[in-house]
Protein backbone atom coordinates (compact mmCIF):
# COMPACT_ATOMS: atom_id res chain seq x y z
CA UNK A 1 0.00 0.00 0.00
CA UNK A 2 1.47 3.30 -0.99
CA UNK A 3 0.43 6.27 1.04
CA UNK A 4 -0.66 9.47 -0.57
CA UNK A 5 1.88 12.23 -0.93
CA UNK A 6 0.36 14.25 1.87
CA UNK A 7 0.39 11.27 4.21
CA UNK A 8 4.02 10.55 3.37
CA UNK A 9 4.96 14.11 4.26
CA UNK A 10 3.04 13.97 7.51
CA UNK A 11 4.53 10.63 8.46
CA UNK A 12 8.09 11.81 7.88
CA UNK A 13 7.56 15.14 9.59
CA UNK A 14 5.84 13.44 12.49
CA UNK A 15 8.26 10.54 12.98
CA UNK A 16 11.21 12.91 13.11
CA UNK A 17 9.66 14.43 16.23
CA UNK A 18 10.23 11.30 18.25
CA UNK A 19 14.03 11.22 18.37
CA UNK A 20 14.05 15.04 18.40
CA UNK A 21 11.91 15.22 21.54
CA UNK A 22 13.92 12.44 23.12
CA UNK A 23 17.12 14.33 22.50
CA UNK A 24 15.61 17.59 23.72
CA UNK A 25 14.65 15.91 26.98
CA UNK A 26 18.15 14.54 27.32
CA UNK A 27 19.60 18.00 26.73
CA UNK A 28 16.94 19.89 28.65
CA UNK A 29 19.39 21.34 31.11
CA UNK A 30 22.32 21.67 28.78
CA UNK A 31 20.66 23.81 26.11
CA UNK A 32 19.63 27.41 26.52
CA UNK A 33 16.04 27.55 25.26
CA UNK A 34 15.09 31.20 25.15
CA UNK A 35 18.17 33.25 24.53
CA UNK A 36 21.43 32.41 22.86
CA UNK A 37 24.04 31.41 25.43
CA UNK A 38 25.66 34.65 26.40
CA UNK A 39 29.31 34.58 25.65
CA UNK A 40 29.89 37.12 28.34
CA UNK A 41 33.57 36.65 27.93
CA UNK A 42 33.74 38.55 24.63
CA UNK A 43 34.11 42.28 24.54
CA UNK A 44 34.07 44.56 21.52
CA UNK A 45 36.95 46.91 20.79
CA UNK A 46 34.73 49.93 21.40
CA UNK A 47 33.65 48.63 24.79
CA UNK A 48 37.18 47.78 25.85
CA UNK A 49 38.46 51.18 24.82
CA UNK A 50 35.63 52.71 26.82
CA UNK A 51 37.12 51.24 29.98
CA UNK A 52 40.08 53.53 29.55
CA UNK A 53 42.81 53.17 32.13
CA UNK A 54 40.78 50.61 34.01
CA UNK A 55 41.46 48.04 31.32
CA UNK A 56 44.53 45.83 31.59
CA UNK A 57 45.45 44.63 28.12
CA UNK A 58 47.06 41.23 27.76
CA UNK A 59 48.68 39.92 24.60
CA UNK A 60 48.39 36.13 24.32
CA UNK A 61 50.48 35.76 21.17
CA UNK A 62 54.01 34.36 20.79
CA UNK A 63 56.73 36.70 21.95
CA UNK A 64 57.99 37.60 18.47
CA UNK A 65 54.57 38.87 17.46
CA UNK A 66 54.30 40.91 20.65
CA UNK A 67 57.72 42.40 19.98
CA UNK A 68 56.82 43.52 16.48
CA UNK A 69 53.73 45.35 17.63
CA UNK A 70 51.13 45.27 20.36
CA UNK A 71 48.39 47.35 21.89
CA UNK A 72 50.09 50.23 23.69
CA UNK A 73 50.44 49.35 27.34
CA UNK A 74 49.59 45.68 26.84
CA UNK A 75 51.55 43.08 28.74
CA UNK A 76 52.65 39.80 27.24
CA UNK A 77 50.97 36.78 28.77
CA UNK A 78 51.11 33.60 26.73
CA UNK A 79 51.19 29.92 27.53
CA UNK A 80 54.80 29.48 26.45
CA UNK A 81 56.12 31.44 29.43
CA UNK A 82 53.06 31.53 31.64
CA UNK A 83 54.94 30.85 34.86
CA UNK A 84 57.35 33.77 34.44
CA UNK A 85 54.89 36.22 32.90
CA UNK A 86 51.95 35.71 35.24
CA UNK A 87 53.56 37.18 38.38
CA UNK A 88 54.32 40.41 36.51
CA UNK A 89 50.70 40.71 35.46
CA UNK A 90 49.43 39.95 38.94
CA UNK A 91 51.74 42.56 40.40
CA UNK A 92 49.96 45.35 38.52
CA UNK A 93 46.47 43.91 38.74
CA UNK A 94 43.83 45.19 41.10
CA UNK A 95 40.23 44.05 41.54
CA UNK A 96 38.65 47.06 39.79
CA UNK A 97 40.59 46.50 36.60
CA UNK A 98 39.14 44.69 33.64
CA UNK A 99 41.44 42.28 31.85
CA UNK A 100 41.25 42.28 28.06
CA UNK A 101 43.04 39.37 26.43
CA UNK A 102 43.70 39.31 22.69
CA UNK A 103 45.52 37.23 20.12
CA UNK A 104 45.88 37.53 16.37
CA UNK A 105 42.35 37.39 15.01
CA UNK A 106 38.83 36.14 15.34
CA UNK A 107 39.71 32.49 15.07
CA UNK A 108 42.80 32.10 17.20
CA UNK A 109 42.45 30.16 20.39
CA UNK A 110 45.28 31.49 22.52
CA UNK A 111 43.28 34.38 24.00
CA UNK A 112 40.52 32.05 25.14
CA UNK A 113 43.01 29.63 26.63
CA UNK A 114 44.82 32.39 28.52
CA UNK A 115 41.52 33.94 29.67
CA UNK A 116 40.30 30.58 30.92
CA UNK A 117 43.52 29.96 32.85
CA UNK A 118 43.23 33.39 34.46
CA UNK A 119 39.70 32.56 35.56
CA UNK A 120 40.40 29.01 36.71
CA UNK A 121 43.92 29.06 38.10
CA UNK A 122 44.23 32.63 39.30
CA UNK A 123 40.51 32.92 40.04
CA UNK A 124 40.30 36.40 38.62
CA UNK A 125 37.02 38.03 37.74
CA UNK A 126 36.41 40.47 34.88
CA UNK A 127 38.47 38.58 32.35
CA UNK A 128 37.41 39.31 28.77
CA UNK A 129 38.51 38.29 25.30
CA UNK A 130 38.76 40.99 22.64
CA UNK A 131 36.42 40.30 19.75
CA UNK A 132 38.39 40.31 16.52
CA UNK A 133 41.75 40.31 18.26
CA UNK A 134 44.83 42.18 17.11
CA UNK A 135 43.37 42.46 13.58
CA UNK A 136 40.43 44.40 14.91
CA UNK A 137 42.77 46.76 16.77
CA UNK A 138 44.88 47.35 13.68
CA UNK A 139 41.81 48.12 11.59
CA UNK A 140 40.84 50.81 14.04
CA UNK A 141 44.37 52.14 14.51
CA UNK A 142 46.14 51.94 11.14
Amino acid at each position, binding site marked *: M*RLSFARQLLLLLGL*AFLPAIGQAIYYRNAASWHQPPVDSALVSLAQAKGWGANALWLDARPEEQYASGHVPGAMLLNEDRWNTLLPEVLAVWSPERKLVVYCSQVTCNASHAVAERLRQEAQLKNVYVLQGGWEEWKKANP
Partner: protein
Amino acid sequence: MEESESMTGAEVRPAGRDWLLIVRRMLAFLVGAVFVYAGILKARDPVQFATEINNYRLIPWSIGVRMAFYLPWLEVLCGLALIFHRLFAGALALTTGLMVVFIAATVWARLQGIDLACGCFGSAGANLTPAWHLAIDTGLLAALLYLWLRGPGRRPRS
Protein backbone atom coordinates in the same frame (compact mmCIF):
# COMPACT_ATOMS: atom_id res chain seq x y z
CA MET B 1 8.46 -2.97 -6.90
CA GLU B 2 6.84 0.39 -6.48
CA GLU B 3 7.78 1.71 -9.87
CA SER B 4 5.44 -0.58 -11.66
CA GLU B 5 2.66 0.53 -9.31
CA SER B 6 3.19 4.20 -10.04
CA MET B 7 3.21 3.79 -13.77
CA THR B 8 -0.26 2.38 -13.77
CA GLY B 9 -0.53 1.92 -17.49
CA ALA B 10 2.99 1.02 -18.37
CA GLU B 11 3.40 -2.56 -17.22
CA VAL B 12 5.76 -3.44 -20.01
CA ARG B 13 8.90 -1.34 -20.36
CA PRO B 14 11.51 -1.49 -23.05
CA ALA B 15 14.53 -3.39 -21.66
CA GLY B 16 16.88 -0.56 -22.65
CA ARG B 17 15.30 1.73 -20.04
CA ASP B 18 16.35 -0.46 -17.16
CA TRP B 19 19.87 0.99 -16.90
CA LEU B 20 18.36 4.44 -16.36
CA LEU B 21 16.26 3.01 -13.58
CA ILE B 22 19.30 1.49 -11.91
CA VAL B 23 21.17 4.76 -12.20
CA ARG B 24 18.24 6.62 -10.69
CA ARG B 25 18.09 4.16 -7.83
CA MET B 26 21.81 4.55 -7.22
CA LEU B 27 21.46 8.31 -7.26
CA ALA B 28 18.65 8.15 -4.72
CA PHE B 29 20.81 5.88 -2.61
CA LEU B 30 23.78 8.23 -2.77
CA VAL B 31 21.76 11.32 -2.00
CA GLY B 32 19.98 9.50 0.83
CA ALA B 33 23.32 8.40 2.24
CA VAL B 34 24.63 11.97 2.17
CA PHE B 35 21.57 13.15 4.08
CA VAL B 36 21.85 10.39 6.66
CA TYR B 37 25.52 11.21 7.13
CA ALA B 38 24.95 14.97 7.38
CA GLY B 39 21.99 14.46 9.68
CA ILE B 40 23.89 12.24 12.09
CA LEU B 41 26.81 14.67 12.21
CA LYS B 42 24.43 17.44 13.20
CA ALA B 43 22.44 15.32 15.62
CA ARG B 44 25.61 14.64 17.60
CA ASP B 45 25.77 18.20 18.92
CA PRO B 46 22.45 20.01 18.64
CA VAL B 47 23.59 22.96 20.71
CA GLN B 48 26.49 23.56 18.33
CA PHE B 49 24.09 23.30 15.39
CA ALA B 50 21.81 25.82 17.09
CA THR B 51 24.73 28.23 17.27
CA GLU B 52 25.42 27.74 13.58
CA ILE B 53 21.79 28.36 12.67
CA ASN B 54 21.93 31.49 14.79
CA ASN B 55 24.92 32.74 12.83
CA TYR B 56 22.71 33.18 9.79
CA ARG B 57 20.71 35.75 11.80
CA LEU B 58 17.52 34.80 10.01
CA ILE B 59 15.36 33.43 12.82
CA PRO B 60 15.18 34.13 16.52
CA TRP B 61 17.17 31.89 18.81
CA SER B 62 14.20 30.29 20.53
CA ILE B 63 12.97 28.97 17.20
CA GLY B 64 16.41 28.09 15.93
CA VAL B 65 17.34 26.02 18.94
CA ARG B 66 14.22 23.91 18.57
CA MET B 67 14.90 23.47 14.89
CA ALA B 68 18.42 22.40 15.74
CA PHE B 69 17.02 19.44 17.62
CA TYR B 70 14.44 18.59 14.97
CA LEU B 71 16.06 19.10 11.55
CA PRO B 72 18.92 16.60 11.82
CA TRP B 73 16.47 13.78 12.57
CA LEU B 74 14.23 14.86 9.72
CA GLU B 75 17.30 14.66 7.48
CA VAL B 76 18.23 11.20 8.73
CA LEU B 77 14.68 9.95 8.29
CA CYS B 78 14.34 11.37 4.80
CA GLY B 79 17.77 10.03 3.88
CA LEU B 80 16.76 6.57 5.01
CA ALA B 81 13.51 6.90 3.09
CA LEU B 82 15.46 7.70 -0.06
CA ILE B 83 17.82 4.80 0.49
CA PHE B 84 15.14 2.23 1.17
CA HIS B 85 12.72 3.75 -1.31
CA ARG B 86 9.86 4.12 1.14
CA LEU B 87 7.71 7.25 1.45
CA PHE B 88 9.84 8.27 -1.49
CA ALA B 89 7.86 11.19 -2.86
CA GLY B 90 7.48 12.74 0.55
CA ALA B 91 11.16 12.32 1.36
CA LEU B 92 12.15 13.78 -1.98
CA ALA B 93 9.92 16.80 -1.49
CA LEU B 94 11.19 17.44 2.04
CA THR B 95 14.87 17.08 1.17
CA THR B 96 14.48 19.28 -1.88
CA GLY B 97 12.71 21.86 0.24
CA LEU B 98 15.46 21.70 2.86
CA MET B 99 18.18 22.13 0.26
CA VAL B 100 16.46 25.09 -1.40
CA VAL B 101 15.98 26.85 1.92
CA PHE B 102 19.53 26.10 2.99
CA ILE B 103 21.15 27.28 -0.24
CA ALA B 104 19.03 30.42 -0.21
CA ALA B 105 19.99 31.12 3.40
CA THR B 106 23.67 30.58 2.66
CA VAL B 107 23.65 32.90 -0.34
CA TRP B 108 21.74 35.53 1.66
CA ALA B 109 24.15 35.32 4.56
CA ARG B 110 27.16 35.62 2.24
CA LEU B 111 25.61 38.69 0.67
CA GLN B 112 25.19 40.14 4.14
CA GLY B 113 28.87 39.59 4.68
CA ILE B 114 28.34 37.13 7.50
CA ASP B 115 31.30 34.83 7.88
CA LEU B 116 29.79 31.39 8.17
CA ALA B 117 31.16 28.13 9.31
CA CYS B 118 28.80 25.93 7.37
CA GLY B 119 26.98 23.65 9.75
CA CYS B 120 26.02 21.09 7.18
CA PHE B 121 28.74 18.55 7.54
CA GLY B 122 29.78 19.26 11.08
CA SER B 123 33.44 19.03 11.78
CA ALA B 124 34.03 17.06 8.58
CA GLY B 125 32.95 20.14 6.68
CA ALA B 126 35.70 22.19 8.22
CA ASN B 127 37.98 20.81 5.54
CA LEU B 128 36.00 22.26 2.68
CA THR B 129 36.28 25.75 1.30
CA PRO B 130 33.02 27.71 0.93
CA ALA B 131 33.09 27.34 -2.86
CA TRP B 132 33.22 23.57 -2.61
CA HIS B 133 30.44 23.55 -0.04
CA LEU B 134 28.20 25.46 -2.40
CA ALA B 135 29.20 23.19 -5.28
CA ILE B 136 28.27 20.07 -3.33
CA ASP B 137 25.00 21.59 -2.18
CA THR B 138 24.06 22.64 -5.70
CA GLY B 139 24.98 19.19 -6.97
CA LEU B 140 22.74 17.60 -4.36
CA LEU B 141 19.91 19.92 -5.30
CA ALA B 142 20.40 19.08 -8.98
CA ALA B 143 20.27 15.37 -8.18
CA LEU B 144 17.14 15.85 -6.11
CA LEU B 145 15.41 17.88 -8.82
CA TYR B 146 16.32 15.25 -11.36
CA LEU B 147 14.86 12.48 -9.21
CA TRP B 148 11.80 14.59 -8.60
CA LEU B 149 11.14 15.31 -12.24
CA ARG B 150 12.04 12.00 -13.73
CA GLY B 151 12.50 9.50 -11.03
CA PRO B 152 10.37 6.73 -9.61
CA GLY B 153 8.01 7.46 -6.82
CA ARG B 154 5.97 10.17 -8.47
CA ARG B 155 2.27 10.30 -7.87
CA PRO B 156 0.48 7.91 -10.20
CA ARG B 157 -0.73 9.65 -13.29
CA SER B 158 -4.48 9.33 -13.23
